[in-house]
C-alpha cells in the first residue's frame, strides 16, 4: 500500500495541518519510507492473538461521581490566545 499525493492531502486535512503544495510530494516519500518499513509486520501470523488493550493487568479504576474542582475560570483562561470575558474567541462558526 503506497501513500500517494492525494492520500497525503487527505490525511493532512483529517489531521488539520495545512500542508503547502510543495511539501506534499516530499511528505509522501517520507511516509512511504516509514510505511514500507512497517510492512514487515505482515510476516507475522497474528491469527487468534488478542490486540493489547492494557499493558498492566489492572481493572480500570472508578472514582466517585463528585465534583473535585471548579471555580477556576481565570486559570482556565490564562493561556487562551483569544479570550474575552471568560469566553474562548474563534472565527464565526454559524452563519
Amino acid at each position: 500500500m503506497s501513500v500517494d499525493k492525494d492520500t497525503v492531502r487527505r490525511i493532512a486535512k483529517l489531521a488539520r495541518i495545512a500542508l503547502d503544495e510543495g511539501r506534499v510530494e516530499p511528505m509522501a516519500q517520507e511516509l512511504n519510507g516509514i510505511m514500507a518499513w512497517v510492512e514487515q509486520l505482515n510476516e507475522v501470523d497474528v491469527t487468534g492473538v488478542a490486540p493489547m488493550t492494557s499493558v498492566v493487568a489492572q481493572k480500570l479504576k472508578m472514582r466517585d461521581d463528585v465534583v473535585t474542582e471548579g471555580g477556576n475560570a481565570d486559570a482556565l483562561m490564562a493561556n487562551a490566545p483569544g479570550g474575552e470575558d471568560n469566553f474562548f474567541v474563534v472565527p464565526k462558526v454559524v452563519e
Partner: protein
Amino acid sequence: MTNPTDFTLAEARDAVRAKKISSVELTNAFVGAVEAARPLNAFVTETPERALEMAAVSDARIAKGEGGALEGLPLAIKDLFCTKGVRTTAGSNILSNFVPQYESTVTQNLWDAGAVMLGKTNMDEFAMGSSNESSHFGPVFNPHRSRGSNANLVPGGSSGGSAAAVSANVCLAATGTDTGGSIRQPAAVTGIVGLKPTYGRCSRYGIVAFASSLDQAGPMTKTVRDAAMLLRAMASVDPKDSTSVDVVVPDYEASLESGVKGLRVGIPKEYRIDGMSPEIEALWTKGIEWLRAQGAEIVDVSLPHTKYALPTYYIVAPAEASSNLARYDGVRFGHRAKDIGDITGLYEKSRAEGFGKEVQRRILVGTYVLSSGYYDAYYIRAQKLRTLVAQDFGEAYKKCDVLLTPATPGPAFAVGAKSDDPVAMYLNDVFTVTVNLAGLPAISVPSGLTADGLPLGLQIIGKAFDEATVLRAGRALEVAANFNAKPAQWWRAA
C-alpha cells in the same frame, strides 16, 4: 571540600543533612554551573530565583530539624512536566508561551520531598526523537566529545537536555520521560544512569502526553543509588491518573547492595542484531562476565518477536500521538496563527506553524494508520504484535529474573548525521522500545567507552514492578564497570 557540583545526589543529601553545606550554598554552585553550561543548550528555561527561594525554605526546615528525602537538593526537570507558573514548552513552538496553572504529580512529589528546581530542560519536540535535534529551541550538545575532536555530538533523546545536564554536573539529577527509550538511550550516550519504571509506577498526571499507553517518567542520575533515591520520591499512587497502579513504593536503596548471587540473568539471543558494532558486542560479553563473576546464573533466552517491536511502536506511538495532539488547536491554549480566515483555517494554520517537521510527520502517520480502511491492517495488527512482544517477556521470565542487553546500538553520533532519514533515527531505540511495549522496568548503566572515548551503556530489564531487582543488578554492573569518565568541561571555555 570537593566541588559541590561533583556530588552525587546521595552524597549531597548526606552533606546537607550533616550541615556540611547549606542548600543555598549548594544551589548557588549549581546556578553558576547552569549558567556556565549555556553552550550545551541543555535548558529551555532557567529558574535561578525560584531555586534560591526554594533552597532558603529548605535551609529553614533543616534548621528546625525537619526536611524530606530530597531536602535542599537541586534538580533539573524535563520540559514535559507541567510546573505551575513556570513555562512548559514540551520543546515545541506550539507551547512556547504556555504557563501551566497546575503542577504535575511527579514534580509535586519532588517539591514535597524538599527538592529545588534549577530549571526546565530541553528535549525533542513532544518527546519525539532520539537526538534532541527536533526541539524548537535548538539542539542540545553532548558534554562528551570524541577524543581529540571538537565536533559536537548529540546527547540522545528525547530527554537530551536532562541527560546533558546530569552528565555535565550542572544538576544533581534530573527527571526524564521514556516512551520508546527516551530516558535510557540519552543516558547511555552521555555516560549516566537512566531508569524507566514499570508503566503505572509514576503518575502521568501533568506530563504533556505523547503516547499515553507507553509514556512513563523516571530518574536520570549519576549513580544507581541516586536512581533508587529519586525513583522512590517520584513514584506514587495517584487518583489523578487512572493508570497509576496501586502498589507500594519500596525503599529501593535498602536492597541496593544485596548483590546478584543466584540471580538468573537472561541473555536474549535476538538482541545480537545484524551489523552490530564489535564494541557493543564486546561490552555485552563483558557485562555477562561481570555478573557471572558476582555469582549470577547466566541463562540463554529467546524473545522471538524482538525485530517487530520497533515497527510496531512506529504504528502505536504515532496513532496515540495523533489523538493526543489533537488538543492543540489554537483555541484554548498554545500558539494561534494570525490571518486565519475561518475556523478550519485557525486549526490548520496554527498546527502547521506550531508543530515541527517530525511531529507533523508522526501525526500524519498516526492519522493514516487510524483512518478508515487502514485501521485493521495497521493499528489492530500492531496491537496484536504488541501482545506477542509482551508475551515473549512472560515466557523468558519463566527462566530468568532479569535480562541483560546493550542499551543502544552505538555511541553518540554527530549533530545532523541522521536527521534526513527518519527510519535510521528510529533504529536508535531498537534495544529499548520492546520494554515500553511490554510496560516493563529497565535501567541503563554506563559501562564502558568506545575506542574514541565515548560512553556506552548496558541495560537491565526486569519484571513488572520489580524495580528493586533491576536496581540491584544495575548496581552490580556499576561496581564491576567502575565507569568514571567525566567530560572535559569544554563549554566553560566556549
